[in-house]
């Protein structure tokens, strides 16, 4: 689904976001200067390695970073021109769930183990759509069926559901609120591809009908190809490449992005071994001076290790953080 997004209103603007955690005496630099804009109706895919800081970015937008572990947060996060970072908890509570809702990566932390799945979906519906108990339950049953779970499971508890069924309950809760911004953190990793397709269709439908904007965090580049119109590739807490789906998928430019595409098993080719990107990501407690990817990069030079480079414009809306790409022009 393509959107003429440029004409739409700016919904979310993240500026120079930085987040540090403290962990066993040292400081983990989880997010290191992330900026991006999201317009109404747009959908942005956030991809990148495990531990790159994607969930931390999402939690920053929701303003739900863990108090005890978060050492420092800096930057601005404008939602409809209001800085969420400056907002009081009370105001945030009104925004969470009804205007911004999040599907968590780990469904169990989001579900209440002692409440039936039906009650949990109905609760959100009652709260946001002002329905009475009986109508909310009917709506909850409908929502459960929309995510492909039969109605006779409505009175069961989360532990009686499979991993993917729990994930679908969380999605049902998030979608029932009709949010303006949906942040979905790995929403379909536990789902088979037919149900995944149904869930992605549901999200597309919501976008089409309500103009909902979407931030989709995923490792699955196929899901991004299907659902997103913008892509940001995150590495070691930074955006290393951002652009439209076409720009990034047709012309992946950062060596890390290229490595990601190279590591996917090919559906139509047989290989004995897959090709992961060599080496390991940098230690987030001791980030290097220069490019964070230099140690794993086949093209890295001394200059790359000495200077940390900025996101540079290549074409259209395509930006890349790489000295080599920059120099090649």
């Amino acid at each position, binding site marked *: 689904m393509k959107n003429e997004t440029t004409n739409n209103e700016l919904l979310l603007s993240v500026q120079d976001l930085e987040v540090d955690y403290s*962990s*066993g005496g040292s400081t*983990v630099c989880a997010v290191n200067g992330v900026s991006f804009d999201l317009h109404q109706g747009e959908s942005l895919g956030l991809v*990148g*390695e*495990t*531990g*790159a800081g994607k969930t931390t970015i999402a939690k920053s937008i929701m303003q739900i970073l863990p108090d005890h572990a978060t050492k420092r947060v800096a930057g601005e996060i404008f939602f409809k021109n209001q800085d969420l970072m400056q907002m009081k908890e009370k105001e945030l509570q009104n925004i969470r769930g009804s205007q911004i809702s999040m599907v968590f*990566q*780990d469904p*169990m*932390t989001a579900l209440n183990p002692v409440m039936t799945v039906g009650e949990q979906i109905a609760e959100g519906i009652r709260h946001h759509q002002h329905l009475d108990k009986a109508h909310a339950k009917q709506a909850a049953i409908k929502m459960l*069926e929309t995510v*492909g*779970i*039969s109605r*006779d*499971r409505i*009175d*069961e508890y989360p532990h*009686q559901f*499979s*991993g*993917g*069924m729990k*994930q*679908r309950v969380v999605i049902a809760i998030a979608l029932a609120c009709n949010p303006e911004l949906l942040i979905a953190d*790995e929403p379909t*990793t*536990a*789902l*088979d*591809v*037919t*149900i*995944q*397709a149904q869930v992605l269709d549901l999200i597309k439908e919501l976008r089409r009908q309500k103009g909902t904007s979407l931030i989709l965090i995923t*490792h*699955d580049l*196929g*899901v991004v*190809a299907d659902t997103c119109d913008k892509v940001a590739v995150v590495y070691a807490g930074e955006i290393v490449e951002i652009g439209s789906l*076409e720009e990034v*998928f*047709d012309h992946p430019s950062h060596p890390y992005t290229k*490595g*990601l*595409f190279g*590591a*996917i*098993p*090919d*559906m139509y080719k047989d*290989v004995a*071994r*897959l*090709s*992961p990107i060599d080496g*390991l990501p940098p*230690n987030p407690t001791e980030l290097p001076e220069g490019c964070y990817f230099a140690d794993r990069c086949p093209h890295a030079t001394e200059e790359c290790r000495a200077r940390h480079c900025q996101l540079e414009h290549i074409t259209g809306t395509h930006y890349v953080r790489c000295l080599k790409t920059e120099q090649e022009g």
Partner: protein
Amino acid sequence: MALLEVEHLKKYFPTSRGVVHAVDDVSFSIEKGKTMGLVGESGCGKSTLGRTVIHLLDSTDGVIRFEGEDVTHPDKPTMHKLREQMQIIFQDPYSSLNPRLTIQETIMEPLQLSKRFDKTQLPKEAERLMDLAGIEKRFRNAYPHELDGGRRQRVGIARALALMPKFIVCDEPVSALDVSIQAQILNLLMDLQEEYGLTYIFVTHDLSVVRHISTDICVMYLGQMVETCPTKELFAHPLHPYTKALLSAILTVDIHHKNERILLKGEINSPINPKPGCRFAQRCPYATEECHQPIPLQEVTPGHFVACCHVKDINNL
């Protein structure tokens, strides 16, 4: 020789609305050193099957044989042996680790319990396992919540490998990982298989992964097996209507060519007290009255088993 044979295995769960037939009369066998990929709709019973086979859950009915021996109802010593030889890597790296143990302690725990190692050897052995699974040493004293999803999954793998099992149920072990680390882990699992002759059941929703790692594939639908054959054959000639729908929904990174998806319509089936007959019939575009009769797996072409009474007409066989 088959390392594992399962015959007419059933696992039912009672619930307030009736009995969930999570695994309902499933039979298969896996040769030593092979990988059986297990795919199917979310909630169709893959995890339950894996857990029942390795005795994390009691079976409701059926027979499980390991290395030729009937282990359906193991006595204590047999159970102890099975606990070491059959392992599982879980779907969910978050809840499968004890939050109060450090990474090193987590990996040492099975070593301690087995009493196979001297106390003084434990840290060294844990270090070797961390290395094997690609966990950096600096995480030795970290707690699970301090790790990202990928590293947590590696801890689960290190733990499963600790006692050098013969058989591992890999329940979506790479779903939480980025594609590069996924590639590393898949390579690692395949290397270990080659070196130690390990046998795997590999549960995943990623069909490109299952195609890469499995020798054979079983497709499940609502507690039952609907199609099984060697991997190459399945992707070349999917015969069951559900398998066809499944393969048609694969998303690829090619943004200019999209697969024609077979949409599944119709009522959602429930695994609670299911009616006899094909469980996919309600959503199947080819269903007729005949489909309400029970249908066993049949060998349709050599080595290719399908449970569908219309399989021949649908596929012009």
